[in-house]
């Protein structure tokens, strides 16, 4: 086989291989679907299940102590937790750190909402966490309504989003929106 034919053949193999693998990259969206189940221990020991929280809105924040934007956001989550008591649950899920480290963080930063330990990152995997922090807003019916990526959430932003997801959808408005979407 001559030089040019060999080059062509080998580059073709490489091209087909890469095309095959690149085409596999796709994942369904999480927002708008049911929140994946979890059952995790808190830093203090008791287990919290998503099912236990059904019927109330949930602010689910994934974080880690080494993530500076996460720790900067914590005081706002704490304020929201206090303001939303009885209306919504604020839950923190720590990504793969030790119980002692999380306990120390709770003590230092006076966090009173539950901080769950996702020791092996399985829940983060289910929630498609690639960056920290990321916060999910789950409506009382267990549907993920919103996702905020990156730090910078404030108490007001959290409360506004909870208000939005608790507002029952207006059937007339939804129908009008659907008609608009259906237009060519």
């Amino acid at each position, binding site marked *: 086989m001559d*030089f040019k034919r*060999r*080059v062509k053949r*080998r*580059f073709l*193999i*490489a*091209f087909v*291989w*890469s095309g095959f*693998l*690149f085409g*596999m*990259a796709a*994942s369904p969206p999480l927002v708008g679907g049911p929140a994946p189940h979890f059952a995790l221990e808190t830093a203090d020991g008791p287990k919290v299940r998503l099912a236990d929280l059904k019927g109330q809105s949930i602010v689910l924040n994934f974080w*880690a102590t*080494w*993530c*500076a*934007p*996460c720790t900067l956001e914590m005081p706002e989550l704490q304020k929201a937790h206090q303001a939303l008591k009885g209306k919504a649950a604020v839950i923190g899920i720590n*990504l*793969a750190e030790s119980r002692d480290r999380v306990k120390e963080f709770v003590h230092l930063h006076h966090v009173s909402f539950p901080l769950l330990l996702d*020791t*092996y*990152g*399985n829940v*983060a*995997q289910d929630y*498609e*966490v*690639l*960056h*920290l*922090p*990321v916060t999910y807003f789950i409506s009382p019916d267990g549907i993920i309504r919103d996702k905020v*990526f*990156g*730090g*910078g959430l404030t108490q007001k932003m959290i409360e506004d989003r909870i208000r939005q997801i608790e507002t029952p959808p207006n059937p007339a408005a939804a129908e009008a929106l659907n008609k608009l979407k259906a237009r060519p």
Partner: protein
Amino acid sequence: MKNFIKTGVLVFLVMNISVWAEASCGSSNCTLIRGSQSGIANEGRFVVDLSYRYIRQDNAKQGNNSFDGAPDVAKVEFENGVIEPAHHREFKTINELAQLDISYGVTERLTISVNIPFLNDRKHEHIDGCAGGSCAAGTFSNQDGTNGFGDITVMGKYAVIHTTKHLLIAGAGVKFASGEYKLRNSEGDINEPTIMPGTGSTDAVISALYNFSLIPNRLSLFAGASHRFTTENPLDYEFGDTTRIDGGASYALNDRISLVGQINTRISRRDEYLGMRVPNTGMTFINATPGLVVTASENVSLYSHVQLPVYQRVNEVNLVPSFGVMAGISYGF
């Protein structure tokens, strides 16, 4: 005196290691996975990696057995279009390579990287003209073309699977013939292909790398493979295709220090010249590679690895590495 030598081993084929570092933070968020040489860069970010490798080839092998004495190896004589078997006797080769890798995250999943081996330096000790049993004393020095700029490789790496615990990166790229491959020795002859900084051929490279975070940001297992499809260079010489298979684990002792252990396998097919099989080329190496990664700051990590042979097999006889050392610094911005 003729200053020809055949190491049978190209330094860039000898030591290629997966380097991992995880979790990097920006002002608004932290990403869970980032890589340097083998991985992907965050979207819109550069990772610049500077590494140095030292490989000492002073063990003689016959097949996969130890070989007493120094091996006689072949020489390719381009001027006459012939291969001279058992042309010279090799004693030692010290390879030093400095490489700059620049990666840029085009999207969250796609990274383009450029590998620039800007310094290939080989120091040799051999005796020339051994054919027929009478060896003339001599050495081979750097002035005879063992020092120079190597071949640049451009790779596209795509994260096919990119989740908290699983990362699968597929890569495809081209190794260009940017390095010198026709350097002449002190007698004006073209040096041996295996001693040149570049191969003179444009090759295709494909790769795949899978990383499983058993405990995210603390304990990871990884496996990877790559294959280089070589082509014939304008001197009618073709290096053998090379396959790499790597596997290992990375464990973060604390926020700053990670231990990395890996097994690296490299299989290179025999080279060909004018369709003839070139003696003393082609090899299978399996190395154990313990290493250390130190996160110096949010953007800078330092790493070092030692490569220790577990299994080495050569065609006929040749020198093989007794050990290799690699150190580098990685900077993301």
